[in-house]
């Protein structure tokens, strides 16, 4: 069975990628499951979708815990534990990362036995949430890596899944996906099918008898204030607002009041400060700042700069 996971951010079309690949497998004669991980999908927030394909009926269900292929649409997700990109990967797994960095760099960085390939990152865009055609490219690369899906069937599947779009957009997606498919064909077959769990040799589940706990402990309640700050929603951000303090008039209350998340506080010196742990990168502050003292820069570049500064 092929078990393939697509990781991306809300807005990058990972559900579409999984559906294109699912349909391509189906048209090739496979039994298929494809699904997005359903939940509170937010633009920029890490999400994933998955595909299973097998020649016989698929009984396995739910999240793929041991993937054969993991496709990562946005390399900024890799270092993010909440994204779960590397969950369940081992020497059998093939990682495909959309990145400007080389496969060997990633191999070292991740210190993994998994095989790593990179998607020849296309034109760079400032806002990674708007990577062009990324869902079609990811689906194309994945299809080629399986070595069982033909070019023709893949394109048929892609057009079927995108048929709600305008023709010129479908055409652009097709052309770019085809070139991705062709580029990746040299690696055809690198994504290998995994087997089933064996009943003869397995790790026993560590079951326990759930102990009774009084309602003082077991009630559905939080007896603490403002614990939400432990959630780092700054990881959703693909564009970073940066205050250019010399230009800041110190009106302070404009950006701080309009920030939906309350992620801009006013310092004692009267100037605003952005909480990057939690800023989601909506850029309302950039749009509203009267003297235009806040600019937006791509998050991946800002992070690279930070790394540069600290090393």
């Amino acid at each position, binding site marked *: 069975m092929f078990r393939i996971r697509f990781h991306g951010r809300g807005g990058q079309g990972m559900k579409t990628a999984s559906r294109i690949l699912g349909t391509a497998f189906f048209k090739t004669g496979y039994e298929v499951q494809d699904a997005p991980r359903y939940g509170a999908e937010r633009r920029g927030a890490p999400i994933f979708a998955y595909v299973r394909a097998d020649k016989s009926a698929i009984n396995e269900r739910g999240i793929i815990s041991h993937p054969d292929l993991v496709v990562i649409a946005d390399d900024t997700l890799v270092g993010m534990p909440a994204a779960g990109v590397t969950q369940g990967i081992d020497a059998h797994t093939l990682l495909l990362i959309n990145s400007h960095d080389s496969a060997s760099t990633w191999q070292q960085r991740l210190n993994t036995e998994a095989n790593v390939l990179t998607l020849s990152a296309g034109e760079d865009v400032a806002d990674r949430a708007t990577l062009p055609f990324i869902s079609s490219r990811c689906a194309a690369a994945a299809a080629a890596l399986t070595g069982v899906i033909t070019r023709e069937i893949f394109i048929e599947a892609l057009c079927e899944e995108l048929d709600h779009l305008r023709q010129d957009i479908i055409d652009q997606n097709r052309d770019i996906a085809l070139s991705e498919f062709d580029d990746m064909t040299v690696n055809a077959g690198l994504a290998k099918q995994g087997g089933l769990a064996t009943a003869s040799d397995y790790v026993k589940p560590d079951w326990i008898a759930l102990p009774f706990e009084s309602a003082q402990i077991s009630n559905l309640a939080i007896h603490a204030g403002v614990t*939400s700050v*432990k959630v780092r929603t700054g990881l959703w951000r693909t564009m970073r607002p940066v205050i250019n303090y010399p230009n800041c008039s110190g009106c302070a209350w404009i950006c701080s*009041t309009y920030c939906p998340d309350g992620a801009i506080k006013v310092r004692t010196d009267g100037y605003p400060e952005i909480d990057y742990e939690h800023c*989601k990168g909506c*850029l309302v502050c950039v749009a509203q700042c009267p003297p235009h003292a806040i600019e937006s820069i791509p998050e991946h570049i800002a992070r690279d700069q930070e790394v540069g500064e600290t090393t």
Partner: protein
Amino acid sequence: MIKQSPVHFHRMKDMPSTHLLGTGTPMCAGCGGLETLHTMYDILGRKTVFVNAAGCMTLLSVYPFTPFHGGWLYTSMASAPAGAQGVRDAVDILLQKQKLPAEEDVEVVVVTGDGAAYGMGMSATSGAMDRKLDFIYLCYDNEGYGNTGQQYSAATPHAALTSTSKGSHGYPGYKKDLFSIWAAHNPAYVATVIAAEPLDLAKKIEKLQTMTGPRMLISLAPCPTGWDYEPELSVEIGRLAVQTGVWPLKEYVEGEVRHTKVPKQRKPVDDYLKLQGRFKHLFEPHCDEQAIAEIQARVDSYWDKNAAK
């Protein structure tokens, strides 16, 4: 609840510079509803118990995370005002029986989306107003069932595309006049607000804090996800809703409706509509002048009727 005296919000400088609502919530980037809530919370203060109905903001608190210093209670889609009734009554009983010191009193605030406020929760809201419940109700109105993917609700404006009105003319119905429905109950206070006009919002919250009884707020909540626009435009679109006259800012007190911000020269509705993907079909591939004219006419008619108020 002991009523506070007004502090007076005159300028942006008067707005709170620290924020009570915790960061790290799962609301979408650029959420216009969250913008209203955090401003409101700053003014109301910590001793607030929010009672919530099913909607986007239900996810504000997901175990074990909460952005609140005080109380939060999720109830159901239909019964948040009844949850507020129980909390208010219980606290009053305890105060009356002197089992609770006055400084432990709370302000009870219902927070629901338009799905609950305009529809399923209307009966419970009406009941709470009938009973003159001393509470605040904030409806963050993003004009559709946002948490399930923006299907149309009774708050959806005419012609908007939603995931259940995808046809070439969008939603055929018209936005329900919840302000008038609420005002017909003669509660202590009803107001429309929007986060893009923070001073107007702050003044209204300050004003309702001096009152007792049902105090009802409808906040238009620009929604990048449901209305299909870039999140950075949230405030701009909100401001245009006011400047075009699409979202009149007003309040109802003791039988009188008063407009709190009357746009001197109303901008054409196009300015508001064209920034939003949900109205894109009115402009592309062909300009649907008839539909836009109809929307404009309804806005004009509203202001013609209400010019003096």
